[in-house]
């Protein structure tokens, strides 16, 4: 549906056409705008989304719960194999690199968060998380698009998505830079690059359709990215990112933040082996180690800049409390989110613990939801980005939040 993008993209084009898209592009004016953006409100929200339904009972195993070990059977994590947090909860061993961040009070966990009106379909559950309107498939915009809309400015770099495709969270009128890699964001036209650049710009400039607008955004992004040397800077403070897409995306997210391009919302799509219907122990070890190393490296890389950054890690649903017949777990309900950053009141596990006794499980099979995911998302928007969340989730008035950020 092409109508849905029209209005604000026009705003974006109005803002960019003179500065960046047109022939008379002036790099300095754009950089001034970027710098202004950075001054006005430098706080950044990073949403790391784990696709596939990451198991909250493995991210943050409740080793102190009397029912945990029996429910989990062959895939229960032993007390001596996990990273203790508070005697009751622990971190998955793969997430051990985050223990110092937790101890330093800059990492919080939120257990039993999710969607009360559950869908155990990956696709629906992701959609509902990203539109922020569970059960309602008629809302076409994403919750981050609506968040960005409430923030002044319309730079293409205000919203950045590290993903193969435009993510649903950003679907809507606001411009967003979608990329898997920002390096070498340039045309490959050896020996005729300037001519190719000028003529292709002319073609897309004249095209009023979605295709044309997307082409115009591509050239606008190219202008910004090619003229920002910080984007090719190596990681700092000795940070070492793992060789995995979550590592590469978070490394680039840190570069975008350091470059001061005015980025406010950064989405990091992680499509790993989280849908652990079988062989869960090995899959979790692999993916959580990557995630833990990448988040720890991001924290180290940005150093003091983390005072202005909050990272939320979440997924579409948790997994059944019971181990299934294949040393795995089927689709469940509540999951466990991570919140990391300088403004996080960390060092503790938030959320009401619903318990794992059969009578306490949702439909006698899943960890029950005790925190609506929209309350968590709303707190990110309000406390980190200064956006009033009252109208952010159509049909839902978020509660006061858990007091994690601020």
């Amino acid at each position, binding site marked *: *549906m*092409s109508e849905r993008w029209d209005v604000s993209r026009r705003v974006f084009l109005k803002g960019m056409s003179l500065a960046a898209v047109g022939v008379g592009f002036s790099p300095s004016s754009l950089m001034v705008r970027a710098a202004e953006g950075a001054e006005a409100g430098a706080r950044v929200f990073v949403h790391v989304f784990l*696709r*596939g339904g990451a198991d909250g009972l493995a991210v943050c195993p409740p080793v102190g719960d009397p029912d945990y070990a029996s429910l989990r*059977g*062959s895939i229960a994590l032993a007390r001596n194999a996990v990273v203790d947090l508070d005697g009751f909860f622990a971190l998955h061993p793969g997430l051990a690199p985050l223990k110092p961040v937790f101890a330093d009070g800059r990492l919080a966990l939120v257990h039993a968060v999710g969607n009360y009106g559950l*869908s*155990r*379909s*990956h*696709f*629906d559950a992701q959609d509902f998380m990203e539109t922020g309107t569970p059960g309602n498939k008629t809302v076409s915009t994403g919750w981050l698009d609506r968040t960005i809309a409430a923030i002044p400015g319309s730079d*293409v770099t205000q919203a950045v*998505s590290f993903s*193969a*495709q*435009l993510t649903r969270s950003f679907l809507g009128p606001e411009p*967003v*830079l*979608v*990329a*898997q890699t920002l390096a070498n*964001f*340039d*045309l*490959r*036209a*050896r*020996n*005729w690059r300037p*001519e*190719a650049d000028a*003529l*292709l710009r*002319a*073609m*897309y400039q*004249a*095209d009023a*359709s*979605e*295709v*044309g607008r*997307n*082409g115009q*955004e*591509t050239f606008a*992004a190219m202008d910004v990215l090619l003229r920002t040397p910080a984007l090719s800077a190596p990681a700092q403070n000795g940070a070492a990112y793992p060789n995995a897409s979550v590592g590469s995306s978070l490394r680039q997210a840190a570069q975008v933040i350091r470059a001061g391009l005015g980025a406010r919302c950064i989405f990091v799509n992680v*499509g790993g082996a989280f*849908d652990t*219907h*079988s062989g869960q122990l090995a899959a979790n070890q692999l993916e959580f180690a990557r995630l833990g190393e990448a988040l720890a490296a991001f924290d180290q890389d940005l150093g003091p800049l983390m005072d202005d950054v909050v990272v939320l890690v979440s997924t579409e649903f948790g997994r059944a409390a019971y*181990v*299934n*017949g*294949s040393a*795995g777990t*089927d*689709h469940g309900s509540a999951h466990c989110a991570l919140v990391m950053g300088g403004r996080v009141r960390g060092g503790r596990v938030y959320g009401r613990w619903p318990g794992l006794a059969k009578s306490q499980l949702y*439909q006698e099979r899943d960890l029950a939801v005790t925190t609506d995911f929209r309350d968590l998302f709303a707190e990110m928007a309000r406390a980190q980005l200064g956006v009033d969340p009252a109208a952010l989730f159509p049909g839902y008035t978020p509660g006061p939040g858990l007091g994690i950020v601020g």
Partner: protein
Amino acid sequence: MQMTAIRPATAVDIGPRLARYALSRLGFGPRPGQIRQVLAQGLQRYVEEQLDPAPDPDLETRLRGLRTLDYPIAQVLALNNADDRAIGPIVDEFVAAKLIRAAHARNQLQEVLVDFWFNHFNVNIGDGFVRYSVMSYERDAIRPHVLGRFRDLLGATATHPAMLYYLDNYLSAATRYDASGRLIQGINENYGRELMELHTVGVDAGYTQEHVFDSARCFTGWGIDNLRTSGAFVYRPAQHDTGAKSVFGLNVPAGGGRDDGEKLLDYLAAHPSTARFISKKLAERFVADVPPSTLLDKMAAAFQGSGGDLREVLRRMIDSPEFWAGAFGPGKPRTGFELTVAALRAADAQVTSSRGAAAAVSAMGMPLYQCIPPTGYSNRGDDWLDPSSQLNRMNFALDLSANAVAGAAVDARATVRSASGNPDDARSVAAALDADLFGTSLSAATLGAISRLAAGGPVSIATRGLGLCLASPEMQTR
């Protein structure tokens, strides 16, 4: 066929546009000269040929060098057991065959459908045993049925070891505990759920979690003989849950066996929600991101009236004014794979390997056979419009026209000449490619840009002109 009825009497000049449309919707787009050919033979005849594929000796010749395409699963496993480097070249040949077929097959609709149905019944080549069985999966479970009955296609995927592995059904078994009360084996819901959500009735059909669980119970015992050697389907009665099941209106009495699963497949294949769900998905691929409900009604009726004959569903779709109306709309954005193949065809590329083109498709966000979730890649064109993909699309076009894509030889001058253009004259290049590849649908801005190419310089006018054409906004839609 009534398509002639929707042609206005005065429409002498819309022929090329309709031909381009047919070639781009039912296939991956025109090769040089093909719009003229289709107009000469008549659209109706082209459509009939596509619905009733004839042998394609040219394609057979092109595929002859790929010796592993016919290997059964056991042979692939045996080769890999002897030398674990064997699988790499086998996968390369498999991916190359997909690109060669898409780029060169005369039966374009068949290749579009193989791509569509593989994606509908997605498996991920990166997932363990799938790597060794995916070639058989496409060849034996998908390809033979794309113009056949939906029930046959559904049954072939349900029993194929690649699907049994990918959605974990081979692990699913009647729940059993040992003497100390420890779970030894049990139900795995993965296939039972996706069968309903993604393969048949759709997520909004109204089934419950209990139905999902019982769906999975119907398929207990459907497994794989030996993942290291035969890799064949096997039914293990001892693992089957013989209790009664209730799935979304179907009651399966206790005491059944393998047939429980077949009964459920019969039931789901014939369910009205399936007719609607499949019609909608086909229409999303072939017609529009949001297809008109009048069209879905016709297609769903054809699905039900024909007992799920997929050729009849497609015939009904193509026979509808709603289908041809798309030729005069804004166009549907091409996915990364569609754009890549359309460019290969337009440039008259001779595709011999997967190397360059497959990497380009990955860069556009849809690595071939590597879609991780069972949902498959989106059929909505809008989902593929983003700056990163756009840049990769333009760069593929520029590389291709400069003959810089490995395994896809292009001679831009020859392509322009075959379109009756003068390869040294920018205006002539623009006009010739517009007529020959776009059915004269290029915009004034695109024609103007190509016409402004400077004479001289190290890169020929033909290469630059073809590159701009393939990178143009008009190329992004079909």
